[in-house]
């Protein structure tokens, strides 16, 4: 097979037929609902022959050229309303079915095998989008198995773009218009046929079976001109200046521009739904009326919805400006930190399909540019835990710590769960309820302890289970407390309220290896004496001579409390801290952690030696669903433990 072959116009049907003979359904452009959409193609007759699109912000129309022109092109349009992710990452995918009979649980995987598909007419921008999804969904230690299956089976026929629309800016993003890689076969459409080249072994095999002649020099020359023309069109249009963009954007987190855009933005999610790289998802549960079976389904989700960043006691992004900022800074800044590329390929769909015509290029111009990136975590990644894959544990015992906090002791656990790290958490599941992230509060001889505050239906239901009941578990996941950062140094541990449980495995481990550390001090504050957890254990620790324990409450009724009253940072004054030799671990409400870390920094502890554990809405627990994003981080995967330096100013910014 030659490097450039000539596929005559009528030969396209043969290519489609060959792909079908291989057992593939061919998905390509076709006209439906006054638009050129991707759908199943039986033959070339189903393609949008002689149909063009015209796109502008918030506006899309198609038109037809001369009726029966035999030279009418099949790919004479820029892009479609929805992207190829509809096939590689479908809007809804069944995941698991859970059944609960008495105290026994069963989980069944209900995913389907991926169909064998061929994508016909993939543009360079969309190839770049697929490459980005490969990195996001299948490039890390955890993979989206459904995506990997669909992607692995897809055969890709790219078609060079010659007619960009007014909303296109692939040239700015460096993704097009020329098709460079990631295809099996690439076509360049000319009036009487196609210049064909293969980009993979599978593509070469298909091309060989077509037995084509080599493309002539005129044909090759004309083909090269197609994308040259496209590039020239885009050079005249508004683009995006990517130089320094990542940092310029992060410098403007408090810009008035966000408020201005939010006046127009409807937060309708259309931009994220049509975006070929947006990958956020939800788990939707369907429970039967008797509560015995629960079916879960992965669905497209969006950072523009209110529920997206909701946790039991509130919402991290209540305002539309917060949500737009989250989206734009993710696409053009934090995505680079996470995955090494922009999260935008310049296809322009978010501009065309915004119902009120918000133009992302103009948004970037309005909200201009600031700071250096940090590397993705190089820490070892803990045990595997894909969504839908649950292991089981049995509740051996449970007891109340306070009026709304319970500790469960779990047994019959897989070894991987018992070998987790201090500070890691589990996604805890009971069929019929949403899974909840819960920190492990103690590891002991094949058992773990979970200390849970009842805040919503899931935690209420789980803490009400009688001993002997099973629960579903994924994990442990996340980055734990870096204990090695305190070797040979003084240790300060500061806990607020329900923040003590995630710290307890750290305390256990430090006390078990006491000789490796200098002085060890625990400062613990709660609202009232009744909100203190582990009160007996605190007394036990306080009685030891190798750990100093300070306890305080915000308020107490006269006669009920003989200890300190006031915020936890006041305890620091009683115990002088040598900041230069100290490592600190802090967990509690976000405002308490902010105040505590500032106070510790004021005593000379470097921000990189102050570690905090963050809380966010989590659905998957492994960095795939997108809910827990905080700036450049997925809190579940990159955290929950972060150093104060890595969190930077985002800890103190509202709405992140």
């Amino acid at each position, binding site marked *: 097979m030659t490097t450039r072959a000539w596929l005559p116009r009528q030969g396209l049907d043969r290519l489609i037929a060959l792909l079908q003979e291989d057992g593939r359904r061919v998905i390509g452009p076709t006209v*439906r*609902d*006054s*638009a050129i*959409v991707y759908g199943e193609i039986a033959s070339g007759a189903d393609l949008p022959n002689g149909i063009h699109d015209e796109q502008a912000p*918030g*506006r*899309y*129309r198609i038109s037809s050229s001369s009726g029966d022109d035999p030279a009418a092109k099949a790919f004479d349009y820029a892009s479609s*309303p*929805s992207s190829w992710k*509809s096939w590689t990452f479908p*809007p*809804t995918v069944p995941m698991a079915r859970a059944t609960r009979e008495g105290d026994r649980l069963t989980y069944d995987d209900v995913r389907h095998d991926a169909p064998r598909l061929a994508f016909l007419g993939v543009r360079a921008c969309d190839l770049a989008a697929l490459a980005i999804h490969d990195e996001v969904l299948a490039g890390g230690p955890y993979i989206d198995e459904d995506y990997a299956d669909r992607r692995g089976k897809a055969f890709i026929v790219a078609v060079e773009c010659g007619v960009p629309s007014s909303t296109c800016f692939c040239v700015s993003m460096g993704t097009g218009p020329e098709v460079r890689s990631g295809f099996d076969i690439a076509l360049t459409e000319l009036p009487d046929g196609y210049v064909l080249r293969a980009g993979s072994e599978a593509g070469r095999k298909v091309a060989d079976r077509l037995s084509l002649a080599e493309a002539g020099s005129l044909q090759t020359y004309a083909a090269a001109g197609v994308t040259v023309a496209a590039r020239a069109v885009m050079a005249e249009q508004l683009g995006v200046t990517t130089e320094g963009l990542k940092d310029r954007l992060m410098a403007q987190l408090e810009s008035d521009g966000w408020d201005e855009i939010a*006046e*127009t*933005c*409807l*937060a*309708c*999610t*259309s931009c994220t*739904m*049509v975006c070929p790289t947006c990958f956020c998802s939800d788990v*939707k*549960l*369907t*429970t*039967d*009326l*008797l*509560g015995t079976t629960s079916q879960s389904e992965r*669905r*497209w989700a*969006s950072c523009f*919805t*209110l*529920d997206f960043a909701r946790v039991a006691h509130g919402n991290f992004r209540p305002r*539309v400006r917060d949500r737009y900022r989250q989206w734009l800074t993710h696409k053009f800044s934090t995505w680079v930190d996470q995955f090494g590329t922009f999260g935008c390929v310049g296809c322009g769909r978010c501009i*065309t*399909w915004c*119902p*009120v*015509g918000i133009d992302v290029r103009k948004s970037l111009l309005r909200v201009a540019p600031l700071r250096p990136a940090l590397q993705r975590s190089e820490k070892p990644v803990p045990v595997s835990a894909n969504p839908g894959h649950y292991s089981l544990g049995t509740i051996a015992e449970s007891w109340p710590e306070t009026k709304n906090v319970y500790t469960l002791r779990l047994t019959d656990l897989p070894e991987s769960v018992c070998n987790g790290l201090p500070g890691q958490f589990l996604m805890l599941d009971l069929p*019929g*309820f949403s899974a909840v992230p819960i920190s492990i509060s103690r590891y002991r001889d094949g058992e773990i302890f979970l200390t849970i505050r009842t805040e*919503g*239906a*899931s935690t*209420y*239901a789980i803490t009400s289970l009688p001993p002997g009941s099973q629960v579903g578990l994924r994990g442990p996941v996340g980055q734990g407390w870096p204990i090695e950062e305190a070797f040979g140094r003084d240790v300060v541990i500061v806990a607020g309220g329900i923040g003590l449980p995630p710290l307890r495995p750290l305390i256990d481990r430090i006390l078990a290896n006491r000789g490796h550390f200098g002085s060890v001090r625990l400062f613990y504050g709660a609202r009232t004496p009744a909100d203190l957890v582990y009160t007996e254990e605190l007394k036990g620790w306080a009685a030891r001579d190798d750990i100093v324990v300070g306890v305080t409450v915000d308020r107490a009724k006269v006669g009920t409390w003989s200890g300190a009253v006031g915020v936890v940072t006041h305890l620091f004054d009683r115990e002088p801290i040598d900041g230069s030799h100290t490592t600190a671990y802090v967990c509690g409400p976000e405002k308490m952690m902010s105040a505590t870390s500032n106070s510790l920094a004021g005593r000379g502890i470097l921000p990189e030696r102050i570690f905090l554990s963050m809380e966010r809405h989590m659905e998957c627990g492994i960095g795939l669903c997108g809910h827990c994003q905080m700036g450049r981080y997925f809190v579940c995967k990159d955290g929950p433990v972060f150093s104060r330096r890595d969190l930077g100013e985002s800890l103190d910014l509202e709405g992140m």
Partner: protein
Amino acid sequence: MAMPKSDKPLRVGVVKFASCDGCQLGFLDLGPALLDIGLRFSIVEFGEASSRRAPDGPFDVLFVEGSISTDDQLRHLRHLRDRASLLVTIGACATSGGIQALRAWAGNDRGIAGFIAAVYATPEYVDTLATATPVADHVQVDAELRGCPIDTGQLVELLTATAIGRRPQLPSDAVCVECKRAGTVCVMVSRGEPCLGPIISSGCGALCPGMARGCYGCFGPRESANGGSLADWYRGSLGLSDERVAARFAGFTAWAPELREVIDAAGGPPGMRRAASTAASADADVDGGVA
């Protein structure tokens, strides 16, 4: 929503105020799921379905259809609230006031009197308020099911969640989400069809856009509904007059504050802004407005 937890079947009532009864039919449309409902719930009051009545409850869960348009209804609603642990409003009338809430734009008692005179031969026997208002304006509501009519899938979800004691998963996102998941091409962008979808709560399965029509808002405004921006787009890019903007917003959930604001800014529902002294002309215009 609070969580009743008991092994005894929950006592359920279904009642109505000013409404067409269509949402109550949602229960009867459940089909086979009705059998499971019988295992977890005991329907003690449902005038539309059964002549065996317990009109005073007490109810673990009371479903309320319809808006409040007379003094009698208001008194009765307060009585029922006292007899119910959970009160769930169903449908556009109960949650937003319904199409009948448009009467409020008649503006004053003389205006409403004009409406009554146009409809009833002996208006002196008719005792009505000048408004038709949502239930939540008068008593505490624990959950609402939107729509005209309600979606049976959401009804099942609410019943299931109530039975097992968790929060129902009811969406607060836009109709756009359902259009995009379904692969429906945006009717506003591709055809210039005015659509309320971006500011309206999902849950209907994007029925109207799926039929190539713009959403007319029967599920009511979603959180963060930015009606002003959408109306600006209608005017500036779709070329709609103020009157047509108001007509598109003045549908089944017109009285919801987020829509009302836009309607008032555009001069009121077509026909009614002219003081509504002649009901006949108002009727004609309103009819055109909500179609």
